[in-house]
């Protein structure tokens, strides 16, 4: 508890030098003179009913002006608490020790009032959830202007208004002057996040902290917001601290990276060091756990077993040791400190310069770039399904959709409702899924992919279009027996593993429910449940536990086990891993891969993460406003996308590879997904299309009047290269509009 001694001493001795001496840090050269933000030995503790939670343990970094530091970690790693501690926004019950200096001025232990001089002025923050971060009862303009007047009370009304308009324009909100009077609920998530950024940069801060700024957003919107952040940084010259769990998001943006685990930085260094030469097994595992959208070769993902430690207990050894495949007895003797990679260890009495590659692992030096992370973490071999060898068309069809439509009437009127339009959530969808394949539907939220799943799961006789499940058509599903036979073929895994399990059921009851419904007898149920537990990698003796006693990844495994209980042919996966942490996600994806191969399952997956889709799917369909705009074999679609929307989607995905990110050409779509209500007559996508924007007026006319059909490429050569691929575009090879293209040169 050395830091506690530090804390108590600090109260008596205010002298910086003395304090640093006690903390074991050299007083002279406390921080690089040019660092705009220096954090030293930051510790945060919370009291909880179970004891003191040591949420942040000895975080330190220097941030140089105009530079970007990426803090990467999973949930509970202490990254958000770190940022709130720097901002002074933690509740007063939190005990914070260490030092946070902004341009050399100490910020910790300032009173709330004194801190207000800096907050929003020199140091600003963008929060994770844009939907709840703006006050619902005030206009957007009011909230931006407030940020200005707090620090400049004498600013005139005209001046603040002009500045607010300027800020909104800077973050890319169209017709900013009118939008000042809009309320937050009239804005989409992406727009609100832009407003948040506008508020943060209102006073040209020196430091901008962005805490998972794009987590809740669609990929295309994420690309837009990241672009806005980039612009904001250029305009203000601020140094940025970017906090994220997504290694792709920071790869192109950050100069330095700090990886956090269990409240502690475990590896720091320049972005290239971390991505190309990781020296801490956790970092290596994380990098290996992320699927890549730009690589077609199928390799298993690196699973990191176990869960992060409970921060109530003081770790006696390396906090990653329980999950580390390289663990040895030495790892359990004391927690390793951060030491320079390849440099001297022990006795070094100074902080290395900012950006030096450091890792907190006693085996750092034996973990070079040549080490194969798949080998270390025992990544399973790529499973091969017996169906993989059979040509697709020779396999049986497990699910077929023919021209399925779901239109919602939009009603308006006080007493007598009248129809003012139709929302075409799903508009003429046809596809089939064969045995043993994984078919994925991708698209932005609101494109109709979830409605499609509902149409399949809630099949009934009177729906518009035909749904055939295992050879039985919905049109024939009039009696309970046929319906039950269809249901047995089709099971679902939900997005939120917590919500999908009844909190009052034990795992046994959860798994027994579908079996009882099939009329199985007790001993058989028991036997089947034990099988299922083993199948999904859970301990069979845990069947008496309640869902809340499992981690998120384990709960999702229970959800998968339940879906498999009745031996379905097809499992519908609704964003199966999006609620899970990266390291856990890999394990679940590998499990899904394995089950598909071993049991010959077919999957219908809906996901917004295209990297996951590429990793797991055989075929993919891209949806836009209720229609499929491109469909085909996953490799052909991802490697050679023909529809401009597919191209835009793919280019928006950040890749965890700094080199690629820096040189990548990116299509930034304008605006949000238009409301399906005012779907245009011709091509749906024309309003946002980068190809359309660059077309001559004569050709544009065609896009606006005719609806492009979904068909294979016209040229026989292209059609031969990818016979399965179909798309709905008249000008697949058209030039892209230069305004929508962005390339960031190497920093």
């Amino acid at each position: 508890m050395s830091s506690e001694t530090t804390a108590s001493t600090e109260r008596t001795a205010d002298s910086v030098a003395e304090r640093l001496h006690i903390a074991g840090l050299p007083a002279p050269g406390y921080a690089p003179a040019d660092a705009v933000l220096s954090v030293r030995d930051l510790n945060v503790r919370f009291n909880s009913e179970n004891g003191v939670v040591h949420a942040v343990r000895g975080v330190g970094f220097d941030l140089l002006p105009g530079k970007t530091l990426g803090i990467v970690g999973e949930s509970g790693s202490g990254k958000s608490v770190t940022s709130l501690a720097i901002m002074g926004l933690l509740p007063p019950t939190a005990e914070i020790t260490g030092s946070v200096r902004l341009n050399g001025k100490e910020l910790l232990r300032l009173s709330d009032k004194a801190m207000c001089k800096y907050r929003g002025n020199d140091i600003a923050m963008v929060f994770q959830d844009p939907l709840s971060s703006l006050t619902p009862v005030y206009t957007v303009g009011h909230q931006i202007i407030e940020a200005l007047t707090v620090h400049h009370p004498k600013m005139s009304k005209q001046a603040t208004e002009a500045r607010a308009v300027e800020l909104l324009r800077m973050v890319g909100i169209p017709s900013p002057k009118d939008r000042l009077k809009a309320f937050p609920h009239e804005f989409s998530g992406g727009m609100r996040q832009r407003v948040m950024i506008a508020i943060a940069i209102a006073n040209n801060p020196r430091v901008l902290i962005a805490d998972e700024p794009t987590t809740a957003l669609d990929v295309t919107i994420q690309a837009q917001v990241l672009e806005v952040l980039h612009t904001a940084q250029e305009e203000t010259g601020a140094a940025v601290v970017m906090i994220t769990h997504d290694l792709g998001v920071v790869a192109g943006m950050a100069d330095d990276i700090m990886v956090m685990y269990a409240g502690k930085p475990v590896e720091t260094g320049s972005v290239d060091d971390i991505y190309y030469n990781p020296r801490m097994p956790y970092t290596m595992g994380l990098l290996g756990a992320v699927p890549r959208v730009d690589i077609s070769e199928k390799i298993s993902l690196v699973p990191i077993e176990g869960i992060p430690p409970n921060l109530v207990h003081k770790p006696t050894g390396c906090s990653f040791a329980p999950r580390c495949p390289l663990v040895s007895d030495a790892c359990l003797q004391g927690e390793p400190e951060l030491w320079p990679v390849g440099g001297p260890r022990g006795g070094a009495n100074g902080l290395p310069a900012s950006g030096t590659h450091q890792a907190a692992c006693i085996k750092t030096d034996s973990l070079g770039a040549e080490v194969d992370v798949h080998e270390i973490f025992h990544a399973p071999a790529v499973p091969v399904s017996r169906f993989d060898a059979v040509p697709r068309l020779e396999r049986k069809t497990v699910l077929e959709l023919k021209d399925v439509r779901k239109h919602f009437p939009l009603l308006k009127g006080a007493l007598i409702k009248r129809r003012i339009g139709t929302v075409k959530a799903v508009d003429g969808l046809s596809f089939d899924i064969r045995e043993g394949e994984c078919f994925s539907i991708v698209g932005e939220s609101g494109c109709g992919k979830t409605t499609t799943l509902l149409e399949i799961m809630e099949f009934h006789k009177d729906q518009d279009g035909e749904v055939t499940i295992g050879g039985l058509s919905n049109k024939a599903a009039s009696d309970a027996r046929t319906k039950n036979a269809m249901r047995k073929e089709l099971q679902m895994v939900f997005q939120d593993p917590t919500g999908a399990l009844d909190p009052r059921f034990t795992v046994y009851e959860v798994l027994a429910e579908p079996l009882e419904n099939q009329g199985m007898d007790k001993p058989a149920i028991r036997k089947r449940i034990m099988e299922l537990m083993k199948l999904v990698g859970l301990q069979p003796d845990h069947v008496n536990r309640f869902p809340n006693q499992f981690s998120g990844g384990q709960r999702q495994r229970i959800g998968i086990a339940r879906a498999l209980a009745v031996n379905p042919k097809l499992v519908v996966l609704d964003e199966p891993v999006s609620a899970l942490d990266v390291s856990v996600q890999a394990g679940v994806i590998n499990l899904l891969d394995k089950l598909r191969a071993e049991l010959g399952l077919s999957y219908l997956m809906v996901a917004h993460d295209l990297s996951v889709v590429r990793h797991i799917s055989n075929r993919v369909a891209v949806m836009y406003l209720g229609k499929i705009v491109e469909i085909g074999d996953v490799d052909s679609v991802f490697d050679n996308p023909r529809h401009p929307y597919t191209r835009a989607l793919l280019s928006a995905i950040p890749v965890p590879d700094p080199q690629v990110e820096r040189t990548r050409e990116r299509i930034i779509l304008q605006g949000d997904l238009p409301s399906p209500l005012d779907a245009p007559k011709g091509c749906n996508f024309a309003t946002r299309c980068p190809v359309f924007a660059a077309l001559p007026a004569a050709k544009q006319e065609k896009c606006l009047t005719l609806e492009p059909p979904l068909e294979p490429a016209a040229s026989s050569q292209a059609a031969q290269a990818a016979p399965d691929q179909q798309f709905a575009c008249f000008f697949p090879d058209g030039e892209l509009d230069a305004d929508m293209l962005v390339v960031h040169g190497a920093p």
Partner: protein
Amino acid sequence: MTNLNAIDPAAVAEEAKIENDDVVIAKSAIILRRFLRNKTAVAGLAIFLALTVFSFVGGYLTPWDKETIDPFNIGMPPSADHLLGTSQAGIDLYALTVEGTRISILIGLVVGLASVLIAAIYGCTMAYFGGKVDKVMLFILEALIMMPALLVVAVATSGGGNGLQENLPSWLLLIIVLLVFSWMGTARLIRSLSMSLMQRDFVKAAQYMGIPARRIVWRHLVPNIGSLLVLDITRGVTGAILAEVAFSFIGIGIKVPDVSLGVLIGQATSQVATFPWMFWVPLVVMFLLTGSLAMMNDGLRDAFDPSSGSIGSANRSKTQKTAKKNSK
């Protein structure tokens, strides 16, 4: 006295044992433990149980009963003969209080339990069927809420309900009328809660598995609104006791010769200065009754609230309790 089963420690512990042959702690056990940890709640339970027992066996501890007039002691203060004194009619106040407490508890329990039952059935039906059924049922519900209960109580108990009055004792009549007007709020709450539960993934999962609707309601909906039901029972019991006292107090609820706490309090108001014990004794009993229920309700709410364990800090256990108490 069935409502006590809802929190009967032995039953809960038994249930926990069945659910777990493992080391795992069952949710019910956690709830019980949380409830028992709350000293106020346990005290409330103890007081309530004591009063209930008192109302049943208390009558045997005195030679007097609620009808016998003691002509030598009319309107006397507490004495050796009459523990709590006598009424103006010369009836032993202790005997009256025992009788009144029993009637009040009876009214409270019957109304509290039955109204929650009606509310649960009505609310779940609304939520399950939705659409038109829901709309019509909601309309009826709101119309009933609009109807001033008091008027109907007055009509039924004092007015021309002569036919009824001859056949039924006034306390039963009051129970029926209170019941008609006490379940709407709970029904609305249950409706909205069930509706949000219907949207939850685990209910959808069951539907997609082809589990019949009846089973989904019974196995998924009801247990998940269970905590609300238990809370509403204690709340409903309190409400019914308060309503009985209020109505009888102004003379439109229970009618003499039946006694209840409300009647005793109401009768004594005219001579508080002269015969203070006649007023204060039943009033204190009523406070003990409603107070103990409120304390229990409080403890139950904390015990059911899954988030209640996570707030506050170790060195502030006292304030934490207040925090929980107020987090409604």
